[in-house]
Structure formats: C-alpha cells, structure tokens
C-alpha cells in the first residue's frame, strides 16, 4: 500500500497551490475517495501528496430559476435526497440512485465521478444529456467547460495541471430519464446506460449512452430524429436504430458488443417513453 501525505487546505487557492507544487501524478485531490483509494491500493496511482477538499465550501446545491449548480464535493446522497432534483432532473436522480450503495453515496461525489471519467459511469451520460458544464478553478483562473469536452477517456479529462472541479452547472430543468442494464441489478456496473433529456428551451432531445469506448458519448443523430416534441413511435425506433449502429460498443467481461447494441435500442425506446410520461413534458 502506497503511503502519502494528506494536506487539508482551507481555501480553493491553497488547494490549487498544493496541487501545483508537485508534478502531475505526485499529487491527487480527494473528495469522497471511493475511487482514488482503490486506485492507490491497486497501484494504478501513487501520489506522494493527497489534497483533501473537505474544508472547501463546495458541498453545495444552488438553484437559480431552473438551473442547478452542484458543488463538486457534495455527497451524491445529498443530491438524491433533494426533492427538487427528483422533480426537475429525473434522469439525474435516477442515475445518482444507480451509483453503488447508500454508504458509498454518502461519500462519493459528482466531481469525483467526472474526474474518474469511467466509460461505464452512470452519471456522465446524464450530465451529457443535460448539457452540463464543469466549473474549474486553477492557477490561471476559473473556466467553464462542457462535460462533453471535459470527459475524454477512462481517467483522462480536460483538467490542466493544478486545476480542480469546483462545481457542475446544469442550465435547465429537463424532462429526462436514465435507464441501465446490469448483470446484477443492485450495486453493479452498467453494461449499457442510456440517458435522454428534452430541452424545453431548445425544443430538442439529447441522447447519451454509457458503456461505450472510450467514454460515454452524446448521439446527436439519434437525438435529431426524435424531433422537437413528443416523438412518434417510428421516430423513436429510428433513433434506437441509429444508437445501436453508431455507438462504439466493445466486448468485455460484462457484455459482448453485439448484446450492447441490442440493449441500447431497447433502453433508448424505454427511456424516451419514461421521459415523455414522467410529467412536466411541455405540450
């Protein structure tokens, strides 16, 4: 087991400085730690210094009209407990509930999940479908990056040296749904995950899938054929076919590529149905 030094900065500036003081790979931030500590144990990372984010004022949930800003170190459990999240962002609520166990969600965070950037992440597809953006703090100031650009591949993101995820911005409440299939329904990693959301402002659908390589991805062509409102059943079928043919699925020990293609079509159809019938769908 690798041993490291833990520092607990009081401010974002201190945290950034602590991170920047060492070469990338030698320092790692910790929020919930539910991914980082396993990576440390299994030798995938060997930081000399771990920077705790626990004293930063980032365990927040801020509403501004329909827009929501989720602090990066807010435990997922708090996100799921917020009654408004369930109503305004049903897809996000469903995806958060799908992550690990209650005990895990009491520590795991949205920021950590984004930075881990797992191809099988349940949260990234939902964030993609909601056009979420990531607010970063870093040595050269703050910046905002769409999740679609932030997440690159497993354990690879757009984070620059010294940068930290401060929050995630969701611009608009959207009728949405998140569906997954797993070998074991409880407490497992999804074989395929599908997130769909309808933007009332843009009057268009967003479809994203997880369980693909190299990372969860939006499927714009599938989104487009769903039209600008309640899609017809043939539009949904067409979108499903596109999703099945375009998504970059792989074969691994959780499922074959072929089966994933088959699943995505079914899940997409059901997810659209759930988003449309979940209430609050604009007329």
């Amino acid at each position, binding site marked *: 087991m*690798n*041993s490291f030094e*833990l520092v607990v900065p009081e401010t974002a500036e201190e945290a950034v400085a602590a991170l920047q003081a060492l070469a990338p790979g030698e320092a790692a931030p910790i929020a919930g*730690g539910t991914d980082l500590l*396993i990576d440390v144990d299994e030798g995938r990372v060997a930081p000399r210094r771990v920077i705790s984010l626990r004293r930063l004022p980032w365990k927040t949930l801020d509403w501004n009209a329909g827009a929501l800003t989720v602090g990066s170190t807010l435990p997922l459990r708090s996100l799921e407990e917020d009654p408004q999240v369930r109503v305004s962002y049903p897809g996000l609520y469903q995806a958060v509930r799908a992550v*690990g166990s209650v*005990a895990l969600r*009491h520590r795991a965070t949205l920021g950590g999940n984004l930075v881990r950037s797992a191809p099988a992440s349940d949260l990234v597809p939902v964030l993609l479908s909601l056009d979420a953006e990531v607010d970063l703090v870093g040595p050269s100031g703050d910046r905002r990056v769409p999740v679609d650009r932030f997440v690159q591949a497993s354990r690879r993101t757009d984070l620059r040296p010294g940068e930290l995820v401060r929050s995630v911005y969701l611009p608009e409440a959207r009728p949405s749904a998140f569906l997954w299939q797993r070998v074991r329904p409880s407490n497992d990693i999804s074989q395929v995950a599908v997130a769909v959301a309808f933007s009332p402002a843009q009057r268009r659908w967003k479809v994203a899938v997880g369980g693909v390589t190299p990372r969860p991805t939006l499927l714009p062509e599938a989104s487009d054929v769903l039209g600008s409102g309640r899609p017809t059943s043939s539009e949904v079928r067409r979108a499903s076919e596109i999703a099945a043919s375009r998504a970059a699925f792989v074969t691994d020990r959780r499922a074959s590529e072929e089966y994933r293609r088959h699943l995505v079509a079914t899940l997409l159809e059901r997810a659209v149905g759930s988003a449309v019938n979940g209430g609050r769908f604009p007329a």
Partner: protein
Amino acid sequence: MTSPPLRFQVNGHPQHLANVPDSERLLDTLRWRLGLKGTKEGCRTGDCGACTVLVDDRTTLSCLTLTHEVDGAKLTTIETGPEDLVVTRVRAAFDRAGALQCGYCTPGFVMALAGLLKERGTAAAREELLDGLGGNLCRCTGYAAIVRAVDELRTEGP
C-alpha cells in the same frame, strides 16, 4: 507521514489518537489501533459492506475512508452500548429474527440499517430500507431473516 493528533467521539467516548499515518483507512484505525474488531474487513473495495460504520450518523464504508478525513466526527460502531437507541433496536430485531448465521456481515448490516433509520426516521418505507441494504452482502442467510428483522423493526413502532 502523520498529521496532527485526531480527536473523535467513538461510541460516545472521546478518543485522541496521535501518530496515525495520513494514508490509514478508518477500518484499520478502528480495528488495529482502537481494537474495535467488531467492524469487519471483507473486500476492502467498497463492494461488500462488512466494514460499514456510522460517521456523524451517516452510513460509511470505513475501508474507503481516510481516518484523517473524518477528524472531529462522531463515530459509531457495532460495539456501541445501549445509549445508542437505534443501534440497540436494530440489534434486538436481528436477535429476535435470528437474522444472522456466520455473523461476519452482521455488524455491517446492523450499522447500515441503523444509519438508514437515523437518516430517514422510523417511519421510513419498507422498500426504502430494503433498497438501502443493497450494498451489504450476506452469503449465509439468503437475506430472508434479515428482511424479517426489518419487518420486526417496523411493526414494533417507534
């Protein structure tokens, strides 16, 4: 590398711990430093729930928690005495329902269920309690007696 001494409340008693390495897990601190072996080591990857404890009354996987990260917290483990009324009630329900066999997952289950009750109150829906135990693995009971323990708790009233 060790940070300054830690101060906890463990099962109602103040605890000061010096020289705890920064990278030490709460699981190991409880077991090997405080001798609280009732918290069990299973997978160490957060997948079995055997190491579940309460940190400020919230269910927490002690295998994936750095001890220093919960400095100042109130910790509750299976060794807690009758002053923790919720844990005591859950224990009694497990006892009456015979909801254990080898007993290795039992402390984790008791703490997970106690944590849910503390979080949600005793009026929590049955489905919610059962769903909230999905991160605790048991290989002996087939969960049937554990479900009976949950039902016992709910019928006995607050």
